[in-house]
Structure formats: C-alpha cells, structure tokens
C-alpha cells in the first residue's frame, strides 16, 4: 500500500514538474515582452508584433523540423545550408517565364531531398547525426553557392513574393505558414503512430527496436521532415527578399533553431519535449532580437546576450534531467 501512495504522489509531482516545464518559458516570454515595452515604449504595438512574428516565422519553421530530430535524440546542423540551397533553387526556377510558381515546390523538394540524404546516412549507414549533418552543413553550403554561380540570384518580379511580404486579414503570410507548421507538427506528434514512435525511439532506441518499431523509418522521416522544413524556410526567405545568396543566406540559422527547441523544454537526449515549447522558444529568441534593437543595444551585445541565453537553455536542460532522475 505504501508503494501505491509513493508512486502516485511521485507521478503527481512528475506531472506538476512536466506542466511547469511546458509552461516554463511562457512567463519568461511575457516578462520579456513587458520589459521591452517598459524600456522602449514601442514594443507592444500591433505593427511591431507583426514584425516580430515575421522575424520569428522562419526560425519557427526550422525549429519545428529540429524538434522532430531532437526528439529522437539526434541533431540537424545542416538546416541553414539547406535553406540557402532551397532558396537559390526556388528563385532560379521562379525566373522561368510562366512557371514562376513552380519555384515553391522546387524549393520544398530540394530541402526534402537533402534531408533524406541525411536520413539515409543516419538511419541505414548508422553514422552519428552530428557528424553527418556537420558534413552536410558544409557540403550543402557549397552546393548552394554552386547553384547560384556564387552570386545573388534576383527576381524583382517574384510571383510568390506575397508570401514573404503580404498578409491575410492583417496577419502576415509568414506567420500563418509558421503557425500552420506548428499545428501540423503537433498533429503528427500527438495523433499518429509515427509520433508515438518518434518519442519511443528518442526515449530508448534499443527498446524501440526490440518492440518491433521500424527505427530506420522513423529516423529517415525526421531528417526528411527537417529537410522539408528547411526547404520551406528557403521559400519563405526568398519570398521575403526577392533574392537568394548561396553564401550568406541562412548562416548560423541551425543555432537559433536548436536554441529554440532547447528553450522550449525538449531534452537533447531525446524522448521528452513538445512542439508548443518550441514555438515559445522561437518567440523568445525573436522577441529578444527585436527588443534589443528597439532598446538600442548594439549589434555586438546582441550576440553576447543571445549566446548567453543558449547556454542558459542548456543549463536548464541539464537541470531538468537531474531533477527528473529516476530511481
């Protein structure tokens, strides 16, 4: 009987801890927003919030893909490079007379293809995700430059430019896309068998295999999905800029995406985390960037502060693992 009571109070405590962690960063987001409003007086305006949403949107999309990868205990360092290659591809194709809109599916397909290459190497050749995606971080960057002849590809008449700059009923299209990605991710993780398998593989890969789960398929999916989201990010950023540059676009985006995922409470070890946390994490990063600019903090200090936030996030991750230690 004592066994019963301890385990139920234990699980209550665990449930409480989980909800605190899930909520964990929401108060931080709200406090940051209020703080910047107090300091600058122009943070909480409709116009600025719309800007923040636009700025956050690409990172939200990348971080959604990254959440899947990190939930399996992996990492995808190549998202920024894949974004650049997809953007160059999308703009190049958009220059074709009359087929300009084909740029969108081409950008997506490029991203998916690069992601699947990562996935095949990791799932079937059993190479470590860090190494594989570190390699493709560099290699795909080269491919992006190659595709654009190492110049910036322009299309001042980009047919899908409205995605980057227009709005629907006052809400920027970029923000709508980002929220749609979050909803889709939530649906996959929550309502499909695949979602359960992703958590299972991240929680205990060998147990997943012994339970008859197709571990390779799960890994292929998450890296493919992350690639697809990078492709979408590429389409979004080219739509915003009317241009793409293989060298500069998407540099260090992987770090913001990883930071958003970790800030959102997803464990780097895998198996624990939620897509809503990622959304909040990405918003915190965007609010931080925007707010620091509004309050006149120099570019240099923005780097330092953002870096410290990432370290703080990892510290939180460690703490969570320790406090969640089981007997």
């Amino acid at each position: 009987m004592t066994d019963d009571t301890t385990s139920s109070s234990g699980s209550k405590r665990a449930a409480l801890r989980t909800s605190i962690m899930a909520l964990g960063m929401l108060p931080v987001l709200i406090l940051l927003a209020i703080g910047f409003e107090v300091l600058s007086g122009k943070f909480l305006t409709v116009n600025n919030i719309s800007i923040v949403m636009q700025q956050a949107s690409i990172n939200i999309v990348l971080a959604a893909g990254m959440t899947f990868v990190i939930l399996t205990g992996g990492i995808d360092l190549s998202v920024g490079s894949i974004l650049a290659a997809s953007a160059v591809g999308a703009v190049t194709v958009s220059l074709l007379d009359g087929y300009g809109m084909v740029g969108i599916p081409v950008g997506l397909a490029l991203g998916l293809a690069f992601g699947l290459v990562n996935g095949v190497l990791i799932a079937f050749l059993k190479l470590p995700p860090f190494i594989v995606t570190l390699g493709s971080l560099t290699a795909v960057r080269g491919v992006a430059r190659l595709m654009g002849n190492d110049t910036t590809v322009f299309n001042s008449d980009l047919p899908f430019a409205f995605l980057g700059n227009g709005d629907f009923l006052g809400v920027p299209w970029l923000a709508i896309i980002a929220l749609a990605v979050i909803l889709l991710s939530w649906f996959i993780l929550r309502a499909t068998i695949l979602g359960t398998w992703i958590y299972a593989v991240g929680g205990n890969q060998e147990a997943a295999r012994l339970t008859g789960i197709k571990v390779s398929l799960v890994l292929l999916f998450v890296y493919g999905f992350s690639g697809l989201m990078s492709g979408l990010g590429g389409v979004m950023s080219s739509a915003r800029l009317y241009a793409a540059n293989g060298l500069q676009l998407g540099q260090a985006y992987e770090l913001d995406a990883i930071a958003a995922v970790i800030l959102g409470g997803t464990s780097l070890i895998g198996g624990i985390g939620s897509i809503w946390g990622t959304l909040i994490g990405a918003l915190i990063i965007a609010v931080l960037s925007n707010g620091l600019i509004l309050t006149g903090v120099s570019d240099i200090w923005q780097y330092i502060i953002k870096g410290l936030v990432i370290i703080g996030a990892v510290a939180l991750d460690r703490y969570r693992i320790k406090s969640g230690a089981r007997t």
Partner: protein
Amino acid sequence: MTDDVPMLEMRNISKTFGTIKALQDVSLRAYGGEVHSLMGENGAGKSTLMKVLSGAHAPDAGGEVLVDGAPIPLGDPKLSKARGVAVIYQELTLAPNLTVAQNVFLGAEPHRGGIVSRREMLERTQPILDRLGVTFDAGTKVSRLSLGERQLVEIARAMSTDAKIIVMDEPTTSLSERETDKLFQVIAGLKRDGIAVVYISHRMDEIYQLSDRCSVLRDGAFVGTLEKDEIEADRLVSMMVGRDLSSFYKKEHVAEGDAQQRVLRVEDIGDGVKVRGCSFEVGRGEVLGIAGLVGSGRTELLRLIYGADSASSGRVWLDGEDVTPRSPRDALRHGIAYLTEDRKELGLFLDMTLSDNINMAVAEGDARAGGLRNFRTAARRARSALDSLSIRAPSARANAGSLSGGNQQKVLLARLLEAQPKVLMLDEPTRGVDVGAKSEIYRLIDELARSGLAIVVVSSELPEIIGISDRCLVMREGKIAGEVSAAPGRSIEQTDIMALSTGAQAGTRTETPPKIAEKEGL
C-alpha cells in the same frame, strides 16, 4: 608450503546494500604460495567479497582484513593497493591506446619534476614481462594484444606494485585453451614467488587443476573450505546449492499431453561466438527452463531466436513453418515474443505513459486509416491489462518510470501479451523484483502455460527454474550441455544443473566430454 601467518585473512566481513545482506559474517584465509579458489553461484557474494578486499566497497562495521598479519584500512582502493592487494577484474581495465609499459604504470608513472620518463617505464616493465615469459615487449601497444595477453599485462601491473595477494575474477572466461595454459604457468610462477592467489571460477576443471584449497560462498555466507585432497565435484556442488525449495513457485500446469504438439523448434542456431549451434523444441503449454552460468550464452540464444542479433547459422520453426526472423519486428509478427533481462535499458519507455508502453507493439495494427492513433482501443487495452495483470499504478497515464520494479515488469509482459504470441521467451523475468511480485509472475507464467503458450524461461535462480519448468536445458560455453527433466516421483535436482553448468559431470545425460581430460592430454 603454508606457514602460520596467512598472507590474507578476512574476518567477519558483512556488507549490506539497503535492505539486502550481500555478505554475512564471512571469514577467509589464504596463505602465501597457494592458490585459493573461491566458488559459489551467481550472486553468492564472491564479487562483493573481493570488492571489500580491493577497497571498492567498505564493509559494515566489525569486519577486518589482515595482510601478512597486519590489519589494513578498508574502503579505500589506493590504500589496499599500497598494502599489496591487486585485483584483476573480469572486464579488464587497460587503456588500449597506450603501450604495455604505460599501462603497467598507469596512475603511478615514474617522473622527474612532472616529466614522465618513458625510458624508465620501459626499463622497469621489461624484467617483469621476462619473468612472466611473454612474447611481446614493453613498448607494444595494448590494442595489438590478444585478450589473453592483456590479462598478462594486468598481472604485470600487479607485480609492478609488489602485490602480495592477487585476486583473479574468472580470468579464463574469454581466453583460448592455449592462453589458459599460459595463464596457468604464470600462476604457478606467482605461487613460487610466495604470492597468495585468490582464484574465482565456475569451471570445475580449473578448480581441480589449480587449487590448493577451495572455499565456497552461498547466499552471502561462508559455507566451508576444502583442502586439495577433499576437492571433488559432488561435494562442491552440494555446498554451492544446498538450500530448500520453498513452496512459492507455482506450477499447476501439466505439460504432458499437449506438449507433444511442438510449437517452437530451434535448429542448430548460433552466432559463431557466444552461441554455438543450439537445438531444442518447446511444446504447447510447456515451460522450458534454460539454466547456465552468467556468460554461458543464454541471453544471446534467446536474442538470436528473436532476431535481435543476427545468427550465423540455424533456423527457427514455428508450428512447422520456417520463420527464422531477421528482426524483432519479424519475430513478433510471427508470434514469438521476448522479455528482455534489462527492462530499463532494453524494454521500457520510462518517460512515456503506461498506456503508450502497453500499446507500443500493437498500436500499428490498431491504427485508423492514415496511421492515426486509435486512442479508444489503446485506452481499452491499457485498462484491461492493468486489471488482468493487477498492475498497481495510479492510472494508465502515469509514466512507466514511476512504477516499482515488479509493476514495470508486468507492464512489459502486458505489452508482449497484447501481441498475442504463441511463444513467450522470458529472460530473468523476476530479476530485481520483490517477493510478492515474484509469486505473481510465477502464477502468471503458470496460467499462460495452461492457456497453451509455449514458454521459455532463462533464469540464474536455480530454485526458480526448478519450481516452474517442465524441463530444463543447461547451457555451458555457448552450447546446450544437457537436459534435466522431472520424472514421476523425482523432481529436477539443483545438483544436476550445477554439475552440467560447471562441467562437473555429476548430472544426467551429458554430451560434452570433460574438459580436464583435454588439458591432461596436452
């Protein structure tokens, strides 16, 4: 050979872990220039005793350890080492990327003003290697040495610290016959040097060949010491197992009739390393026990049948159909289920709910179109499983990690049973489970057998195997050494199993010739 002051004397050593008494008032004496063997079943306390000696564990108050007549401080590995105690563990502690000399002096490098003198290390290591009569030199990288040679490096390390007592924990487990012979020559040399060698082994032939005396532990207590001329298999085996069968094992099912209907047939399966050509059959409603020492290949055998590791030979037949699985997924689909021996590392998803854990293997089959989870079916399955296996949990949405060991084990069983297997293979099903949950698991196994499942149980606990099985296979060194079955009026005897698993040849129906004969022939 023995003088009056023992080189090693351990007096009244007890060790408690939480509520478990791992050692109770054990005393042991070993003299310089003798090989003193230590025997006992798995979990009898041999390793714990040696860890007390090495300082890795501090014993409970009241015990003392004397080296050469003088008490030594306890619970500090460095001090034990300084007093001349060297322990060579089963899993070697060498750094393969370094040379032999660097390993011998690891942590005690000779240096001048903080600069390590490589030449001095080499010069001091080489004479030791010469004494051991090895064929490699002090500058060789350890990664290039065989397992047997690495063992000798460990011995060289012990000798470099002027050890008076060298403990070897099952040193021959992974050695070839030739390497074993070499090791025995070295041990003979250590004896001549007046060192006390404490030798832990499960192999009877080694005990005969090496021991000057042999002590036996059982359930953490000292049973007795035999002198060289008293050492005989029957006597040792009965000292190791002599305990009563309690009545809490449940076996009401009778395998007789239905068991003729063979469900699982395993033919010559092996992986070329740990499992070497095993064949057996299990019938409907039959519980087949598989006994054997740790490392005899039992777990590996089950994993091969389940497709968790790839087999280099052999086939698996289910109801007359060749189902040799390539993956666990394959095996499960055909109706072969496997309960792992390590539920936390290899079985459960501790951060997921009980419902998720129970449904993991069947969720795919239950899914709605498009791979959507069927929450209603999942909830129903979870509820009925919690109920029928009486799993004590606050709700099906509690995390698996929050349950006690016994309940976790039942959650894993529930997952397997949801898949409706025909064959259930259980690897150490009651490990780390309290007594109450144990008897529930026995009852469950009995019920499942009555309902017609073919069940294979691997266990290190002999009374458990005897209590629940219809027949019992005994594995030794990757092979099935023999079979022991209950006959009318005669139950399986622990001594039969022990004899087969150690190669003592006192049991019924043995197939492998005694290894000692091979040795004498050399």
